């Protein structure tokens, strides 16, 4: 019979090494998650700066009695690619697990700012349509990440429409955000359920497939 020994010291030592390696890993994971939020924040900040410039330009043109339409048009055109790229990034982030993991509160703030930016932008497109006779096709899309079975499908249809008709502007607004601005919008359009689409000021509730949306757009533009 051999007397067998147990390497207790070794087990404990290895446990400490492993825990240190793990803490380093969790720390780096946290840093990475924070960097992702920061990078979204930075995008948003640069857009805010852009918006500030463009809005000031428009106001200035207005006060100088110059052609305000030129200012509004430049507002829309300058910001469009940036807004679309941020929209894609936000959509990707929301699909990934990160949005559910760390810094949920911080992401909430980013998203509120982002939604406000979208609404401001949408107001300018309306102005441009009303005052300058420009024809812009836009859709406001109200969705929810929590209690909405059809929002995923609605998103797929809208993605496909965006791909086919890049000139259509789609603004996705999160109804769960607790944002008074979004509440005002929903009240004024009588939105009671998600998904809801606002096309040319009219509320179309419930899931609409691609053909239906295209038909609505052609109806509304007539």
């Amino acid at each position: 019979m051999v007397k067998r020994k147990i390497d207790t010291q070794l087990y404990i030592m290895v446990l400490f090494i492993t825990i240190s390696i793990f803490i380093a890993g969790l720390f780096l994971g946290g840093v990475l998650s924070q960097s992702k939020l920061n990078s979204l924040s930075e995008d948003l900040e640069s857009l805010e700066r852009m918006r500030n410039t463009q809005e000031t330009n428009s106001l200035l043109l207005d006060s100088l009695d110059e052609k305000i339409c030129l200012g509004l048009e430049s507002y829309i055109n300058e910001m469009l690619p940036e807004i679309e790229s941020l929209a894609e990034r936000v959509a990707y982030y929301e699909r990934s697990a990160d949005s559910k993991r760390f810094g949920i509160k911080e992401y909430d703030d980013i998203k509120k700012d982002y939604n406000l930016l979208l609404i401001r932008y949408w107001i300018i497109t309306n102005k441009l349509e009303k005052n300058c006779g420009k024809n812009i096709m836009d859709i406001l899309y109200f969705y929810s990440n929590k209690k909405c079975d059809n929002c995923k499908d609605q998103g797929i249809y809208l993605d496909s429409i965006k791909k086919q008709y890049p000139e259509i502007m789609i603004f996705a607004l999160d109804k769960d955000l607790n944002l008074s601005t979004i509440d005002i919008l929903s009240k004024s359009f009588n939105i009671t359920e998600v998904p809801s689409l606002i096309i040319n000021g009219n509320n179309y509730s419930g899931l609409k497939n691609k053909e239906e949306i295209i038909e609505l757009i052609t109806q509304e533009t007539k």
Partner: protein
Amino acid sequence: MEFSSIGYFGIFDIVQLFCYFIMVYCSILWFVVFIKNHYKFFVDKPTKNYPSVTFLIPAYNEKKFVSKCINSVLNLDYPENKIKIICIDDGSTDKTSDICKNIKNRRVVVINKKNTGKADSLNIALKLVDTEFVVSMDADSFPRKNYLKKIIGHFDDKDIAAISPAMKINKPQTFMQQIQWVEYIFSIYLRKLFAIFDCQYVLPGPGSIYRTDQLKEIGGWDKRSLVEDTELAFRMYEKGYKIENCTNAYVDTEAPATFKELFQQRVRWYRGYLQTTFQYKHLLGNSKYGNLGLFILPINFVWIFILGFLFFMPLYMFLTDFVEYIHTLYLVGFEWSPLVFNFDILYISSYTYFFALFFLIGITTILISLYISGEKMDFKGKKVFYFGYLFIYPFLYSTFWIAAVVYEIFKRNNKW
């Protein structure tokens, strides 16, 4: 594919981190054991005298290899009169028995018997052994010239009852054999670590060597076991024997060539392992059996769980992505979109650190294994080997284990 695309924080993340913790813990443990004992891998105790050794060669339909096996034993660098061979023809239906008979050498004894399995063949021959040591040598295995000289010195330690050799795949031809070639190289390293840590629970058929009296005392091999080599090792632990390993005593062995053959072999091994642990469940968590009872046997169950998790999680993720893709196709039809890849920090998974860590551990382990087994760092010439081992083998290994567990639960054909 992104691990983080699962989209649920909670049970998935916690289970994943738990698996990674165990994986890192075991890797670090083996690195530390290696660093503390590295010298033991290269130096073998020289033998002063040359004790007599009998080689038992059980053969069932081994006409292709049996004569090569016998000749490589006869050619061992060892005093000629100290080696005996007993070749047991286990009721072969091919020419194995003729080939054995044709070897005209007074040191080779041939036994012909009805087919009763390998363990029984070995036991019948063990009764005839009168030398101090005995080797079980599968007929499709070929010891290298210095095998015996390297291994025998370890018996100077009177506590040691058995020693396993270092096995290499003989001339890997098919893809499956090439993957196994790397696996066996890794096993040379791992088996020695297990021996140093006093928890080596397999005594492989190709070239494990035993003290004859001790082997007879505990009754030889168990013919009811699916894996008589594992069962024997467990029994030795139960009786308080010590098992050593020699990394420099090489035995070249044939390996299953096709997926089907490999699948059958591994399901038998792993089912056998499960049955043996249940048979010896009193060893589990019992400090009397040292590191084996207290750590290795319990952690092996966790490892089976980890293998299942690492297999099903990517599968689940792939399937959900696939279902989503089909759903999109159904809703809007196929849409061609150009593949543009822009780097974005959002694409980096939160688990990147761990993936990098495991990659590093994997590469280091392969490098150490190659160094220990005296292989050249021929990554270009053997790129298919390493590719297969790093990317295909984990899935094969998990598949075999899952199959073994499933078969064991449903008790499918419990035979060789």
